[in-house]
């Protein structure tokens, strides 16, 4: 069955952007119309196109169907559909490498679609730095399964046993007679596999085929250039911020001037003179202006007169007093200390005891491009164009927030500025969805720089106290570590009751997230060790712009700064070279799970060597 469909420019843009190498092939007819087979495509990404046209509903792609993951096209290329996002880490390139290897395709024969909730299976988007380590496995297994199925089809087609076939670049050949050959495209190009997979969850997804042993991998192991870079340096890539849809309006937020302020009144006459003004929206303490043009919205946000009632007392400790406050506050929670040996006794008999405090301030995420999202409510659905690295979470969260059926909401993931953890991409996605839903028109929300700086999520501030005991020979025998983190309202991802608009509207979660005061992952052999952590709250837990959240390597920079700075102090007190001091400490460790000890030694030695002029 085939049908001719009008091709909306917006969708074209989204799809081209989702797949730059495809766009560079110019597969989209310039006429703006496209004939395609429904169900499976005749061009790369055609399934995406087919679904993009649909006005919904958008059921979750079934990860237990091979067709969800892999489409073989008539030109003997494949498109892979994976539920991850690539914020510039290069994971997209790696996914293609892994899947091409299992499928015996050349890298160039593949394209990739990532993180769009209605076309790619839900692998959770990005997070935890485990895209290759965890999510790569089902990708490899489904690609291996596709190869197995294709070889069976080829065996039937060529009347040659599977064991007597070889495959190279998507061409199956009889080992005994190279003239007997059939391509993947001839076998299934433009058709469905219709092969069911198994697995109790997406990470366990598998067919019956085994993945290749590492020795047989040829594409993996090559240091390929990232496929997304050319389109990023010639201006051809359509990023999320570049998306435009017909009738699109521009919104800017108007934030409370101080934390905890409540909106008293808005004087709409202050902006009525602005051409293109469509509406001033307010709901609780959430305020936004919506205009026809972007510069009008910026002007309106600047000009809108709103009266705010500040909170009764100054809610926060002054910046200069922050760390005194953290140290003096009663913790909201304390984790069970991690103890080995008896540090108190060891300190009592130590030749030398050192103590040091370390302070680490809040660290803004401060993306180079402030938070952005576009939401389109056309056709009784909600499509959100976003670079939220957890696009699936955004979809679910927005559906809950607006009380919409989940299958009427979808998120199209597109390139954006860096996402190093829980960014404000979450927050702005909800704002765009809310405004589009409210106005019944597509709304583009772009945070301004001051908003990003003030209101984006922050890595928690920490105050540390460390104590170390050296014996008479300068050996580290005891260490105590105590961390206090302002992390009481630690935000999750895309939570409908903790995103900024929910906070400003007065929604409150039943309880705060526990937060945490992280401990170092000690790779040193220290006989007597005590690690403790406490979580501290600031006043105005739910009215604060100091919303803590994961910033790449959550808590790592704070903890490592304090812990390793103190190791330097100890080395100095022991009159030892800090590298040699550490090497000895690592050597003293007996823990080598996942080669941790060996790797730590190797890294440290390599660093010393790379430094060149290091003098012990």
């Amino acid at each position, binding site marked *: 069955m085939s049908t001719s469909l009008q091709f909306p420019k917006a969708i074209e843009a989204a799809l081209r952007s989702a797949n730059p190498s495809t766009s560079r092939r110019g597969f989209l007819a310039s006429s703006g119309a496209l004939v395609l087979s429904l169900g499976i495509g005749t061009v790369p990404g055609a399934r995406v196109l087919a679904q993009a046209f649909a006005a919904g509903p958008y059921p979750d792609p079934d990860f237990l169907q091979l067709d969800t993951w892999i489409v073989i096209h008539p030109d003997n290329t494949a498109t892979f559909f994976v539920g991850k996002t690539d*914020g*510039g*880490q290069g994971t997209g390139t790696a996914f293609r490498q892994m899947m091409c290897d299992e499928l015996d395709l050349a890298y160039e024969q593949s394209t990739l679609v990532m993180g769009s909730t209605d076309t790619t299976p839900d692998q959770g988007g990005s997070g935890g730095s485990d895209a290759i380590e965890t999510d790569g496995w089902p990708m490899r297994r489904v690609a291996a399964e596709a190869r197995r199925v294709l070889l069976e089809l080829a065996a039937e087609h060529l009347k040659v046993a599977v064991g007597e076939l070889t495959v190279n670049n998507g061409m199956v050949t009889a080992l005994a007679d190279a003239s007997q050959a059939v391509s993947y495209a001839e076998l299934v190009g433009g058709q469905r596999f219709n092969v069911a997979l198994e697995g109790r969850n997406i990470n366990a997804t598998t067919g019956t085929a085994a993945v290749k042993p590492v020795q047989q991998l040829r594409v993996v192991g090559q240091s390929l*250039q*990232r496929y*997304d*870079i*050319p389109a*990023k*340096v*010639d*201006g*051809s*890539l*359509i*990023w999320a*911020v*570049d998306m*435009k849809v017909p009738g699109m309006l521009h919104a800017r937020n108007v934030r409370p001037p101080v934390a905890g302020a409540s909106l008293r009144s808005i004087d709409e006459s202050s902006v009525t003179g602005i*051409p293109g003004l469509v509406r001033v929206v307010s709901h609780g303490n959430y305020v936004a202006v919506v205009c026809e*043009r*972007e*510069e*009008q919205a*910026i002007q309106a946000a600047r000009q809108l007169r709103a009266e705010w009632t500040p909170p009764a007392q100054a809610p926060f400790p002054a910046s200069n007093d922050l760390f005194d406050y953290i140290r003096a506050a009663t913790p909201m929670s304390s984790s069970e200390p991690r103890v080995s040996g008896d540090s108190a006794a060891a300190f009592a008999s130590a030749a030398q005891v050192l103590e040091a405090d370390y302070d680490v301030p809040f660290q803004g995420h*401060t*993306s*180079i*491009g*402030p938070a952005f999202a576009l939401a389109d409510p056309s056709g009784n659905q909600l499509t959100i164009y976003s670079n939220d690295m957890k696009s699936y979470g955004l979809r679910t969260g927005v559906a809950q927030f607006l009380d919409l059926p989940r299958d009427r909401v979808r998120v199209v993931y597109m*390139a*954006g*500025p*860096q*996402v190093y953890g829980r960014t404000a991409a979450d927050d702005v996605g909800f704002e765009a969805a809310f405004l589009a839903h409210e106005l019944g028109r597509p709304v583009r929300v*772009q945070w*301004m*720089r001051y908003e990003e700086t003030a209101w984006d999520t922050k890595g928690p501030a920490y105050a540390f106290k460390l104590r170390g005991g050296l014996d008479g020979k300068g050996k580290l025998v005891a260490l105590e570590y105590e961390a206090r983190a302002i992390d009481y309202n630690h935000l999750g991802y895309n939570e409908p009751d903790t995103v900024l608009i929910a906070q400003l509207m007065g929604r409150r979660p039943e309880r705060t997230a526990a937060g945490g005061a992280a401990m170092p992952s000690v790779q040193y052999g220290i006989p007597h060790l005590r690690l403790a952590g406490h979580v501290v709250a600031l006043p105005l837990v739910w009215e604060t712009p100091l919303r803590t959240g994961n910033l790449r390597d959550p808590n790592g920079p704070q903890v490592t700064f304090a812990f390793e700075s103190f190791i330097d102090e100890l080395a100095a007190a022991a009159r030892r070279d800090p590298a040699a001091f550490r090497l000895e400490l690592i050597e003293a460790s007996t823990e080598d799970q996942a080669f941790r000890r060996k790797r730590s030694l190797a890294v440290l030695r390599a660093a010393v060597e790379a430094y060149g002029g290091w003098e012990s």
Partner: protein
Amino acid sequence: MSIVSLNVNGAVHAVDIDPSTPLLYVLRNDLGLRGPRFGCGLGQCGACTVIIDGVALRSCQLPASVVSGAITTLEGLAQNGSLHPLQQAWIDEQVPQCGYCQNGQIMTAKALLDRNPKPSDAEIREGMEGALCRCMTYFRIQAAIKRVVKGSDNDQEVAG
């Protein structure tokens, strides 16, 4: 609103806008260009950089109506289907991480090399210092610029 005429990448466009509209929004929203992008709106980060009559300027702070010169954006660097050597070097050195700021990096580097084809390392750092990258790709940016400088040396040797 009034009609403002802009010469962008060799073509003249007339747009009906409020004359105070920053050039950035006209390029992006009226002319559909994607190279220059919004980073701060304050002229501080460089993401919106365009080249006007050879000078790298921040389009987010520049009213469109005051621009009379020829504007070049990232899209205008490639000639006859061939990437500008800087763009090619950016690919060869795999410069971008997220890539959001790289318009400003490339356009700033272009203006730098146009006025000083053989910058020293110090001159590269000085010339590029206003273009911010949150992914810290500065070392690869410097390597890409040096690759272009070196490439033009080789070209001259071949020609000579």
